[in-house]
């Protein structure tokens, strides 16, 4: 159930209050309650898919226990990883692999199962990677195998993060689940509420509003000028950030309200000075996962230069494949990999220039990331290339489609607010503390105005988060 849905907004206060009705000393009781709530919320989508979640949980739980005891754990690890990946491979990649094979092989193999693409269990990529991370941590002895199935099942299915992350590490969450948590942490709860409020603003006021423009122009880009396509690409770059960062912020905020700390997922990615820096700020939990379980096991940077470049490329190839079963995602991942290799070769990963040089690097990185997002957004490689070709076609009229003026006004307002906050957080974190101001009046006025903006300028009805599709 997504956080900006009406059902969740109504249900969550009850989940919250009932959770705190259980005395703090009954840690197991609290965990059992959260597990039930998590499964019920997950099953609300398609009840049968809760069984897949349970299966992935059981496989990794028992595999980890066996790995911890085994003298030759690699075989168990391999089997556990393959079994864990099976539902993901089947639901998400079967048709893609099959289609690709059908095109390559002359015999024309075709075992298409048309129901699979729309029936992908929500959050499967997230909970599968979280479970795999735990399995590898146990194998590498970075994490002890968990013996309490209830605790482990809650770690995998915890409702704030199951749908679209963050992909949490067992070492962060399991100790919190096992420890005696304080009855209620006022500061944390308030902090969590603020995160939910700002996350909701990012999602419904900004992401869904700019999404109206993006969804008008990009699907029928042949009807629009190059400048309009460029504007749509910029707005998609903003949409995917505000949609996903907004969701992550809400997930972390909801976790905080229940007394949990979850992994930080975004750190103002569009102020990155290089693509490498971008990946230290964008979807941090996935970047960390890829670094820990793909890049470093392959040798990381402690190897020859050439091997290091290969490791970077493969890591981002995996990232592309993780995002979706389409060549567009693979090209998107490869683009990011290649950019980082070039940056490494030129020594441009960090910024040692003054404010002007830094501004130029931020702008260049933004534009590179922006063009790469086109491959992420468009349904096929030819469409993505088609949009780029239109953007650079000088024969097209230099006019821009602005869309309805009402929509434009809300877009400008929302984007300006998000940019201003990110700018403040990046360059002057101690100034203009509206939601964290020492003055209660300013704080409360900010809360009320923010919720008022959500109600008056938000787009309601567009429940789905972009990343929930992965």
């Amino acid at each position, binding site marked *: 159930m997504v956080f900006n849905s009406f059902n969740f907004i*109504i249900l969550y206060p009850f989940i919250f209050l009932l959770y*705190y009705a259980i005395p703090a000393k009954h840690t197991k009781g609290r965990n059992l309650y959260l597990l039930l709530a998590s499964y019920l919320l997950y099953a609300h989508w398609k009840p049968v898919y809760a069984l897949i979640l349970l299966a992935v949980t059981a496989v990794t739980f028992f595999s980890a226990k066996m790995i911890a005891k085994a003298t030759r754990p690699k075989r168990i690890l391999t089997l556990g990883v393959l079994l864990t990946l099976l539902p993901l491979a089947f639901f998400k990649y079967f048709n893609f692999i099959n289609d690709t094979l059908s095109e390559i092989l002359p015999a024309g193999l075709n075992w298409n199962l048309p129901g699979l693409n729309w029936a992908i269990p929500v959050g499967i990529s997230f909970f599968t990677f979280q479970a795999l991370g735990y399995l590898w941590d146990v194998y590498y002895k970075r994490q002890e195998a968990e013996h309490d199935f209830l605790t482990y099942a809650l770690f995998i299915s915890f409702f704030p993060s199951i749908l679209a992350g963050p992909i949490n590490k067992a070492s962060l969450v399991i100790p919190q689940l096992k420890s005696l948590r304080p009855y*209620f942490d006022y500061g944390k709860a308030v902090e969590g509420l603020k995160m939910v409020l700002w996350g909701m603003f990012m999602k419904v006021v900004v992401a869904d509003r700019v999404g109206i423009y993006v969804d008008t122009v990009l699907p029928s880009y042949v*009807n629009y000028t190059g400048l309009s396509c460029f504007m749509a690409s910029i707005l998609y770059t903003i949409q995917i950030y505000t949609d996903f960062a907004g969701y992550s912020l809400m997930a972390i905020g909801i976790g905080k309200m229940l007394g949990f700390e979850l992994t930080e997922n975004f750190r103002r990615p569009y102020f990155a000075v290089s693509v490498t820096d971008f990946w230290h700020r964008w979807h941090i939990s996935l970047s960390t996962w890829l670094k820990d379980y793909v890049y470093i096991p392959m040798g990381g940077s402690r190897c020859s230069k050439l091997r290091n470049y290969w490791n970077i490329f493969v890591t981002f190839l995996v990232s592309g494949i993780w995002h979706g079963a389409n060549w567009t995602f693979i090209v998107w991942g490869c683009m990011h990999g290649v950019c980082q290799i070039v940056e490494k070769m030129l020594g441009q990963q960090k910024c040692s220039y003054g404010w002007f040089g830094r501004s130029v690097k931020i702008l260049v990185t933004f534009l590179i990331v922006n063009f790469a997002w086109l491959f992420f957004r468009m349904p096929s490689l030819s469409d993505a290339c088609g949009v780029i070709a239109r953007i650079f076609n000088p024969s097209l009229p230099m006019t821009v489609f602005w869309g309805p003026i*009402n929509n434009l006004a*809300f877009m400008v307002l929302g984007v300006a607010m998000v940019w201003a906050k990110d700018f403040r957080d990046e360059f002057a974190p101690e100034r203009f503390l509206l939601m964290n101001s020492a003055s209660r009046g300013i704080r409360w006025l900010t809360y009320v105005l923010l919720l008022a903006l959500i109600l008056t*300028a938000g787009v309601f*009805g567009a429940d789905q988060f972009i990343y929930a599709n992965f």
Partner: protein
Amino acid sequence: MRKFIFRVCLFFLAIIVFDRVFGFLMEGISSRVEVGVTGRDNFICDKVTDDMLVFGSSRAVEHYNAQMLTDSLGIPCYNCGETGCGIILAYGRLRMILERYKPHTILYEITPDFDLLEGQDNHQYLFSLKRHYDRPGIDSIFWSIDTKEKYKMLSKMYQHNSSFLQNIVAYFSGIAGETGVKGFRPYDVEMDTMKVRKGHIAYDSSKGYTYDSLKIQYLNKFLDKTKGMNVFFVVSPMWYEQDTSVMAPIQKLCQERGLQMINFANNPKYVHNNKYFKDGEHLNARGADEFTRDLIQELRKRNIGGKP
């Protein structure tokens, strides 16, 4: 915990107060707007008294020259169509109009996507009705689309969602989009040939059509409310050829209720004729005048209006 709950309640109390004040101000402002989309909507819901009314989507707004219909038929006509909307909004507007008077003739422009077929999110048709939620018969339209709207509409801010800015600007500056002449808003432009391709047929019967039962239900309700009036379903021209089998439910309704359908789909005078269109689905100003003239002839054949 108590402190937290108390402060959250206080916050929501502040929001409720803000909501009521905002709602009070916005209701006052938006009901006084006389220009643009809201001004036109206010006129349709509160002031229109014409005997002939046109309903439908942008194809109604841009195709039916209400002044020409008035002058030629001798029947005052107003164009109540709305871009991107269909039967659900039309039913709501008709309910509000019938609270004041009963028109004589209704021309309903059928656009299958908005009036018959499944696929569009029906929430989009509620946008123009939000401000009128408290009027008789309007609230139930919201509930029929989504029962949760009953609770969402408790908020006055939500009732003015996405429209407050344009209403404030329109009220204080008088600047807004064109209201049109008697609700008719033509586009005096040339055909954009980039946007059309020959050989394409509007509506594709190969996969069969899935009709939206709610839209059909509202078509029936609309006809129930128009008993005793002259109702015509009209399909105005398209640049594209059309698969007319998509209109089967309308033909069935016409048979059951003894209504007439005036169909310009696939009319050779219009199909692929660039001079009458602005894109594949919409006539330009010249095309709209030509179509209105043809429509007047058809209406005269059906004993509507005086002789020329």
